[in-house]
């Protein structure tokens, strides 16, 4: 009798860190190719068009990068706490709160300000909104051990309905009184909007998001808070023994994560939507950030690359439908994204474990 089991790897090499996500993506594309072939499409053509639509023309690249901006920030939101084994899966809700706070600040505070100040006001308000939304989960986690997975998820649904209520359900401050036919958000003044790069839709939020990634890298690598976060992530008891304030560190980490999610919402408001726009914000950008973080193995710089890659995938989704001849359903790109996550999780097993095959006593096998 042959027994196959998973054994924990005792050591890991740097190349495994790069190889696993790469193989995950390739495996996902291979699985997608099988699906496409069954549906009668030529996978090579589809993938070539997907790449062409997202990464070859100026508009393709800039549109992909535009989608990457919020994904970088939600990716960071996930990465900064996931690496501590704290699973804030509510970046989606924190993004909504960031958009609510950011658009409020944009409407109320920025009229007449120079653009750079106006945008800063929106971003700061967004970060505060996101952090506030993560705060209950952080406190419950730190003091009562409540699962942050559940609490951040539940808060996401509350945030979703709050955002919809502000636009669709009430004559709130955010709602545009001019739009009688259909409820929509009031536009923030131009002083609160990111400048665009020439005549594309790409905005300076990209530079901002990259700067934030750099900042998070510095935080994790070079600050005592980052050190504390690493230790708490490895072992609570070791952290306590070392005199690190575990509760405080957990709370701060979750607040930072929430603030990053909130920034994603604020950059969407300042860079793309220019208003609290539920239809334009309910794109799953927060949840996709988790895929980004997982594929990037929580590395801030890798997050920028992965976010661009997934932004391109999303951007290409609609373009694929326009292929001459064959008509590829828009869901293909979403399916690929799901498959990538699935294989990333699968890859995780093999980066931490290896298969061991041995002869075994049949009686033991269950």
């Amino acid at each position, binding site marked *: 009798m042959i027994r196959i089991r998973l054994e*924990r790897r005792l050591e*890991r090499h740097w190349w495994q*860190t790069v190889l696993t996500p790469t193989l995950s993506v390739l495996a996902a594309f291979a699985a997608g190719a099988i699906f496409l072939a069954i*549906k009668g499409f030529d996978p090579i053509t589809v993938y070539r068009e997907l790449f062409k639509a997202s990464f070859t023309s100026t*508009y393709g690249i800039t*549109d992909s990068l535009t*989608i990457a901006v919020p994904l970088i920030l939600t990716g960071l939101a996930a990465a900064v706490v996931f*690496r501590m*084994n704290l*699973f804030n*899966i509510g970046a*989606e809700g924190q993004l909504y709160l960031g958009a609510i706070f950011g658009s409020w600040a944009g409407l109320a505070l920025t009229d007449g300000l120079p653009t750079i100040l106006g945008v800063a006001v929106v971003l700061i308000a967004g970060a505060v909104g996101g952090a506030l939304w993560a705060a209950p989960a952080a406190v419950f986690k730190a003091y009562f051990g409540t699962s942050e*997975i559940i609490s951040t*998820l539940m808060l996401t649904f509350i945030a979703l309905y709050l955002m*919809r209520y502000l636009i*669709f*359900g*009430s*004559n709130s401050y955010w709602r545009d009184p001019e*739009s*009688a*036919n*259909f*409820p*929509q958000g009031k536009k923030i003044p131009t002083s609160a909007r990111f400048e665009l790069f020439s*005549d594309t*839709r790409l905005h300076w939020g990209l530079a901002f998001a990259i700067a934030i990634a750099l900042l998070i890298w510095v935080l*994790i690598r070079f600050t005592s808070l980052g050190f504390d976060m690493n230790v708490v*992530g*490895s*072992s609570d008891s070791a952290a306590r023994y070392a005199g690190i304030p575990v509760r405080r560190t957990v709370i701060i980490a979750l607040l930072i994560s929430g603030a990053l999610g909130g920034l994603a919402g604020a950059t969407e408001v300042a860079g*793309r*939507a220019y208003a609290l*726009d539920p*239809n*334009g914000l309910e*794109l*799953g950008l927060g*949840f*996709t950030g*988790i895929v980004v973080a*997982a594929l990037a*193995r*929580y*590395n801030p710089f890798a997050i920028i690359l992965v976010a661009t890659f997934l932004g391109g995938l999303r*951007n290409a989704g*609609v*373009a694929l*439908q*326009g292929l001459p001849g064959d*008509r590829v*359903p*828009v*869901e293909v790109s979403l399916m690929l994204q*799901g498959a990538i*996550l*699935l294989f990333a*999780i699968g890859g*995780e097993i093999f980066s*931490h474990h290896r298969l061991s095959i041995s002869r075994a006593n049949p009686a033991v096998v269950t």
Partner: protein
Amino acid sequence: MNTKLPRGAFRRSMVAMAAIALIATACGGDDDTTEPAPETTAASTATTAAGADTTEAPGTDCQVIKAAFVYVGPIGDAGWTKKHDDGRKELEAALGDCVETSYLESVPEGAESEAVFDRLAREGNDVIFGTSFGYMDQMLAVAEKYPDVKFEHATGFKTSDNMSTYFGAAEEARYLSGMAAASVTESNQIGYVAAFPIPEVLRGINAFTLGAQRINPDVTVEVAWTSTWFDPVVEKEAAEALLNGGADVIAQHQDTPSAGEAAQTAGGYWVGYNDDMSRFAPDAWLTAPVWDWGPYYISVVEAIRDGSWVSEQYYGNMADGLVTLAPVADVVPQDVRDQIQTVQDEIIAGSFAPFTGPVNDQDGNEKVAAGEVPDLGTLLGMDYFVAGVIGSATG
């Protein structure tokens, strides 16, 4: 980077990931009723009305107009988007080689749609139709960048030199469908599953209620808001809640037929929307207000071809055929069917309008005086429920 994860943590991360995967699926929604795009050409749906004005023989050396359609849902939604796609096929059938159409489905509203409209304009389309309200600002922005491309926006209210809007008086058919609904209810309670508390939807509910009261003055119409145009699961749940509350007929302002499935399961009746949806719940089916976009699409493309296109706000109705009523089911008594036909003839002839006064709101305030007919502007801004509606007009 800390790459060493303790075993317990790994297991936890698996749980989290599984949860995320589930959530992502649930939140991604929208795709479960998607059918692969059928590659049928227009032949089967070409109607006789479609080609009425078309006298030019297709296939000659006509100038080919490229028309692109952007849909908010999948063409397999059996409702709103399907009807627009039927219209596109009618257009192809009517103009043959003189028109080249393409469509993109499930394009989200809001900021992300701008890239889509921009790409379509760059790719050399002569006219781009956007069929959902939430594309308005994006279409307007792209229209400004491409003054030579015509933009046609359904349900919106912003226009420019090269952007028109189009929509129509569904309330006329809603009124007739209310008459059908009132003729079969035994509990005198009708449920209405509706998307958003906006004038278009309020107008429909009010017209439906007025029509129902014409047949049976004791009827009440209870409204359940869903905050979504397209979500089969939510629509069905809302219908079930209304049925559990005592309603035995369900009407809807939603894009899918799932409310009808709930009505059929509960042994009730159902007034659909957008299209003849009878096949989804044949036992419950009564009728539906139906859109026929084809003739409008044909007129737009022909106007572009002969250079007569101008920016306008088109509001069609039953008289010009944009709005129709699906055949009324046999469960509706013959005398009511006859009445519906009579009223429909009056509406088309212009001798009757659904909101002819007296119309009172829920609190008994007179909104339209006896014998008066409100003008279009008043109707387009409707913000109240008429007496007999149960629910809040502000959501």
